[in-house]
């Protein structure tokens, strides 16, 4: 899922226009709710905090919240139509996709981001998420015992670990597990260590962001 992190409150406050009189905080009920950053609860807290802030500045700003199921699909946006219309500024706490989709559907409206979209990850513990995938456009998990060297090695090395990994920990930070140690452990368990001797050619990154802005179609559904 897409993992997000609420922006620093100072950053949010600074991004809001000085002459603001009404604000809609738009939450998103999918990925970023699961990553506890952009759901109804966070929208409400943010509202209370900004209320407190404007009150302390002696300003009168009306703030309302509305959380919809998904901000990245047209059909759900209907519920936001009126709230968006009656507020001067919209602060979306969806992922970057949601914020832009909302903007596409609301030309002429200031749509601001309230959270930082961090990565595609999994919940590894209560309130903790780990990056698992870069969305490179060409999955190679089959060759690496199901562990992605692109996302889980800090250097995205394809041919084995660098010399800096020690005790299974990455040289970049103690809190990062060495992706290659993980690959090795799983490969050993699966009896696939041999595979790791295969030479990996430099990866074709054209399916990644390096190939330009990406889109794809499913011909079963999409008609030109």
């Amino acid at each position, binding site marked *: 899922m897409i993992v997000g992190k609420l922006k620093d409150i100072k950053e949010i*406050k600074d991004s809001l226009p000085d002459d603001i009189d009404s604000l809609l905080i738009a939450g998103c009920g999918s990925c970023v709710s699961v990553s506890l950053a952009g*759901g109804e609860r966070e929208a409400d807290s943010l509202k209370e905090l900004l*209320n407190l802030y404007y009150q302390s500045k002696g300003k009168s700003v009306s703030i309302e919240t509305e959380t919809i199921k998904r901000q990245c699909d047209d059909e759900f946006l209907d519920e936001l139509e009126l709230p968006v219309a009656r507020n001067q500024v919209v602060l979306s706490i969806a992922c970057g996709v949601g914020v832009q989709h909302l903007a596409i559907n609301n030309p002429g409206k200031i749509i601001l981001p309230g959270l930082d979209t961090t990565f595609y990850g999994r919940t590894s513990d*209560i309130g903790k998420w780990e990056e698992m995938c870069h969305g490179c456009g060409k999955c190679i998990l089959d060759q690496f015992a199901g562990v992605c060297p692109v996302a889980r090695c800090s250097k995205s090395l394809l041919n084995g670990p660098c010399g800096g990994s020690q005790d299974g920990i990455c040289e970049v930070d103690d809190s990062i597990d060495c992706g290659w140690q993980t690959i090795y452990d799983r490969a050993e368990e699966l009896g696939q260590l041999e595979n790791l001797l295969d030479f990996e050619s430099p990866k074709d990154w054209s399916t990644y962001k390096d190939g330009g802005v990406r889109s794809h179609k499913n011909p079963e559904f999409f008609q030109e």
Partner: protein
Amino acid sequence: MAGKRKFELAWIGDKEETDFESIQISAEDLVACQGEIGDFKLICNKENQPEEINVANIIINLPYQEEPVLEKADSLFSDDYDINEDKPVIILQDYPELSAAVISQAGLEKALEIKDNYPDKEVYYLYQAMRFIEDNDRLYERARESEIIFLKFDLGQLKIIEEEIIHYNREDIDLKLNGNILAAPELKPAKETERIARIFNLADGYKEYLQLDNIYLQPTLSGKRGVYLLKGSRGPTALTYFEEELDFTLNEVSKNLAGVTEIDKYDREVDDQKCILCYTCYRVCPHGAIQRDDELNSMKVMDLACQGCNLCLSRCPTNAIQIEDDYLKIEGENEQDPILIICENSAEIAAEKYNSMVGKDPLESYQKIEVPCVSTVERGQIFEILSKYSSDIMILGCVSEACKHLTGHDRCQQVVERIKEDLEKLEIEQDRVHYERLSPRMAADLGAFLADWKEALKQ
């Protein structure tokens, strides 16, 4: 599923003799646990034969892993040990670290057994500290009378040479003992511990065991109603009072079988339209009271398992969990009074005690929010109070390891820290939010503290 069976009690791991209709399930076979006290569903997979077993109570009774401390020595627990005619017998405990109390018992019994069978044999007993449980006192006296040689050693006074020779060295005594060593093994948690913790949704316990370091979970409670921990699943000292703990546990089981009632009177409903199955409630619930409702495709709060802390509803990202009780209501007559958010398991009890001692309610002339657990304090709630009221807020939580809902104090502290951080970033006065921890015993403290605080606020 191959079949369904129903039992009063399930033993995960070892089984003890009881009058209950019980079933023993090996930890390896267990795959999942659903349901709640009185009606657990254990999904087992024995030799690829899936089976659902219904049980009312569960005792997790994993054996310890015994790790020998010396390669060549026999275990103190073993009945199969060498007696060499020429050599003395050496009983060794507390090496390299202090052994559990139960080891003293095993050691003394073994020493006496050898002395009874071989009266002329020299028996040495090396130890750092004799531990007393059951009738160890008597055994120890008897052992002294039967001329077993007790040698107490301190850190660093003992060296093991060549696995069979022990060098006991004090300033006044220098002994090299060559004999058959019976050594106390080190006790470690069972291998399956981690998997079992996941299956029962139990948090990481003390020293990799399952038992959490929390006084409310004594002696064998797991935090989840109807699930009990014994021996190697519980902790390093679990053998000390094993009989008593077993007794306690079986009596709990009896009581449960006689009828289980809800601990908390309120129902918590999950709105299946709002629930996104993010499992946050499941993960935060300290009592394993949340499960997935497959029919509704949403989470649900199990009423018998729930212990009423409200952590689930305070952490739900979509506000999908609702309770009929307005548990965040502010009670008080004067809107100018400072606001207390008080934990009903610490400050409130202390206040009641203070009242019974001094005859004065230390909480009067405050506005109060009584909470089952301060972990339910939310950022939004505090910001709202700060903007609606002009008075200060004091949150009174419990002390570490003495939280009835296991981690409330830490969670609350984190929330308060984040609140202060946010306020600081927005240059809003942060001194209006206070957080203190106290135990229900600190009645005198609470009275004095609140009086001082009020004085300070006036100024």
